[in-house]
């Protein structure tokens, strides 16, 4: 089993505020790694740091054995490391269609844009209906679908997903988890941040619990017990 | 301690400067010109910082104020001081014509105001019977002699414009500290969110526009009576927009005194230092200065000085 993503003693934050305190975790190739944790634990910050959206102040991130130190976001993306951010990170002034086309921007994905777009429209018919609408006027849930669809256009090899079910109607959440299960079956490396713990655990190969910028629990998916996990959410930060 | 310093500054400004430069009308004239720019700069910064509206057309208010006051005093015989206030009022009234522009944001607003300035200038040129057309108005009444002080002279003009600038800055400060100021600050980029908690944002912005226009109009009226001459190209010249903006930003437009400091610094440096050294290219130095300020201390001169003296960073607005 190879390691697709290897985070070692990572430190990062926003300006003077440090958020991540020596975070270490790994995501094996072809498996689904789930990160859970209370609000403000630093999950999003971790994903951003991996992608290079915020500077890393300590530690290292390796993707397929290569260190990302000094690498820029766009280089990582070209190498197949993709993040699906929450729905606010769409291109608000562009049409739905152009948003999706931007997903195919990395050179390797350009050839397949037709097929991929058809697939996205198939998954989210709502987006097909709204393909010419300016993305900034989409409803919250529609924007979330767009962010996911756009990420799929990027043909990820390692995919970081931040709370894909946020603000979506229950039927669509079902659909999202079906997609995730399918991607997992296809052998994609997934790092999933999700608040909907019970559903996330169902597709998890491995689970990490983050709290206050630290990883406080790492277990294989089948070993995790929901009750215990929730208890840990609440436990006081003895380390802090 | 603060109060003593303040008092000392006031004494120096009101008594020291005229005593020192009373004999050199050239220098005093430059200081008056610099303070004229400072007055507009304060008004511009008030609109820009509190109202969140960048204007490229303050020349419109300046021109309307100066023409309003000049025409009132020349054609209707209104005494100069009331005429100056009425000139300010005329500029505030002119800002009412600009209310539709409040719907616009950012560069859209800035340019709409510029268009207004142009229109007012053309009106001043075309309304020959009232404004004297392209030839303008000559021999506009000067400020009168009051309490033995000839306010029409350089020293008198200095005292008047100094007072106008001080009062404007105080008004700015008062608004900024009020609940209105807080609401205005809150409106930046989040106007809808501010409205749904009950803030009548358009009214507030209109009030800021009118206040800014009023101050600019008064400054324009002062200038008309001080130099005793007007013509459309001069009264509505883009200089009255460009220099105050440069001054406000150079000095730090998010502070109350930055624009004043900026105007004095830019104008006096340019005229006293750069012009003698580089008679033709001195404006180039102004350009270099502006660029350097933006790159080295984007908050402006005043915040930079404060940082140096206190070692602390100052917050927004």
């Amino acid at each position: 089993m190879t390691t697709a993503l290897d985070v070692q003693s990572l430190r990062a934050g926003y300006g003077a505020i440090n958020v991540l305190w020596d975070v270490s975790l790994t995501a094996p190739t072809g498996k689904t790694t789930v990160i859970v944790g209370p609000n403000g634990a630093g999950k999003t910050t971790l994903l951003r740091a991996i992608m290079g959206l915020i500077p890393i102040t300590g530690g290292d991130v390796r993707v397929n054995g290569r260190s990302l130190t000094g690498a820029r976001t766009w280089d990582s993306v070209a190498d197949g490391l993709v993040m699906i951010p929450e729905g606010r990170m769409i291109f608000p002034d562009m049409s739905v269609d152009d948003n999706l086309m931007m997903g195919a921007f990395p050179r390797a994905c350009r050839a397949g844009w037709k097929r991929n777009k058809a697939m996205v429209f198939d998954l989210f018919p709502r987006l097909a209906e709204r393909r010419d609408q300016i993305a900034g006027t989409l409803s919250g849930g529609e924007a979330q679908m767009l962010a996911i669809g756009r990420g799929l256009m990027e043909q990820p090899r390692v995919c970081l997903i931040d709370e894909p079910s946020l603000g979506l109607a229950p039927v669509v959440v079902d659909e999202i988890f079906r997609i995730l299960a399918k991607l997992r079956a296809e052998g994609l490396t997934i790092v999933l941040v999700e608040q909907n713990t019970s559903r996330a655990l169902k597709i998890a190969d491995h689970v990490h619990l983050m709290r206050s910028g630290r990883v406080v629990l790492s277990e294989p998916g089948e070993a995790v017990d929901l009750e215990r996990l929730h208890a840990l959410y609440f436990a006081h930060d003895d380390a802090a | 301690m603060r109060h003593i310093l303040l008092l000392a500054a006031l004494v120096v400004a009101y008594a020291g400067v005229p005593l020192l430069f009373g004999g050199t009308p050239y220098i005093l004239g430059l200081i008056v010109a610099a303070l004229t720019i400072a007055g507009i700069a304060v008004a511009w910064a008030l609109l820009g910082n509190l109202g969140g509206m960048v204007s490229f057309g303050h020349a419109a208010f300046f021109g309307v104020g100066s023409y309003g006051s000049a025409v009132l005093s020349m054609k209707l015989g209104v005494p100069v001081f009331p005429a100056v206030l009425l000139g300010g009022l005329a500029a505030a009234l002119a800002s009412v014509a600009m209310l539709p522009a409040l719907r616009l944001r950012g560069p859209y607003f800035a340019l709409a105001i510029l268009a207004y300035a142009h229109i007012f200038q053309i009106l001043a040129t075309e309304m020959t019977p009232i404004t004297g057309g392209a030839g303008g108005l000559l021999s506009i009444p000067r400020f009168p002699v009051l309490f033995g002080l000839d306010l029409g002279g350089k020293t008198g003009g200095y005292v008047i414009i100094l007072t106008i600038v001080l009062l404007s800055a105080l008004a700015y400060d008062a608004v900024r500290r009020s609940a209105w100021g807080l609401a205005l600050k809150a409106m930046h980029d989040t106007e809808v969110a501010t409205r749904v908690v009950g803030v009548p944002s358009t009214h507030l912005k209109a009030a800021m526009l009118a206040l800014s226009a009023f101050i600019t109009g008064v400054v324009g009226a002062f200038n008309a009576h001080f130099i005793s001459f007007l013509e459309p190209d001069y009264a509505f010249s883009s200089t009255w927009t460009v220099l105050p903006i440069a001054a406000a930003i150079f000095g730090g437009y998010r502070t109350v005194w930055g624009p004043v400091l900026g105007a004095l610094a830019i104008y006096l440096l340019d005229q006293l230092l750069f012009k003698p050294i580089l008679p033709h290219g001195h404006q180039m130095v102004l350009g270099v200065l502006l660029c350097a300020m933006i790159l080295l201390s984007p908050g402006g001169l005043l915040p930079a000085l404060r940082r140096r003296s206190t070692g602390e960073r100052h917050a927004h607005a």
Partner: protein
Amino acid sequence: KDFLLGSELPLTGNLARVGQGMHEGIAVAIDMANKAHAGTHSFKVSTIDDETSPAKAVAAVEKLIGEGVVALTGGYGSNIIGPASEAAQKAGVVYITSGGVTPDLTGRGYKTFFRINNTDGYALAMIGLVQQMAAKKVSVVYLNKEATSNLAKQVKETLGAKGVAVTMHEFDGSTSDFKPLVNKVKLQDRPDVIAMVGYENDYVGILRAAKVLKPDVKAMVGVWSLATAQMAKEFPDLMENVHGTSMLPFPVEFTQPEALEFAATYKKLFNKEPDYLGQFGYVQTRLLIDAILRADAAGTLASGGLPDELRKTDAQTLIGRVTFDAKGDNPHFTHRMGQHQGGKVVLVWPKEAANGAMRFPATPW
């Protein structure tokens, strides 16, 4: 003895070009005076750029007076000369200029204000030429600035009184495409002559539009910087046959020794042929220097005798005879009209000054 003169001129801003021209003329006058009086007197001029701004012109005048200048020569643009000369009047210092022609300036009756040219002189020349052409219909195309519209209106009134049909077309300084305007003249007015009153780039614009539209006119006439060597050189194919005010022909055919020396000095200092701006600047400064020397000799210079001495002026100059009336205006001022002919400027009006035949009807196309 050393004399310091002051000069306040637009060297930057909208009027930079004309300001520079006058500046050169002043420099030539100073240079020639220093040569003529070498050993006895010397002259210097302190120049301040007014940046084409009235307030800065006032400041400049105050500064120069503060430096102790004997008198001021310079100024361009009536709107700037107005306040600037007012500041000079207040200090009792002579201000002599050729840069502002509106009647308002001399209308103030200042004791210290002098000028060697005026709107009347330009209007006379333009009207004279148009009459020489026996034009029945004239279209005046003019810029909506003070000096230009005053001149245009004067031309209209005088020609109108003489039975010429005149139509007026005002335009704005920002106009860059004159085709609609010229087309209107071409199709609606059908004049014999198009008279233009504006600045250089307006002329280029109007002439270009006319060259494209080819209105059925017999002549194109203008004032100010039109019949100049500079224009002939920069726009050879546009200027052919165009008429404009010009004191001297080009290449300059000087006969008087003063004129020859002027041209030589100009060439030496600036390495180019003098143009009308330089001439005016030169003449006003020479007259000023003469008066200064007279006042100095009479011992009245320090006691404010310069204005009176200037008023006594009666001289033949490069621009003809100059005297000053009580208001400081030069009643003798009449301009001449030249025509671009094959890269040269030939004087064609008045008859006395003409050094060649007027080509008529003739247009650049």
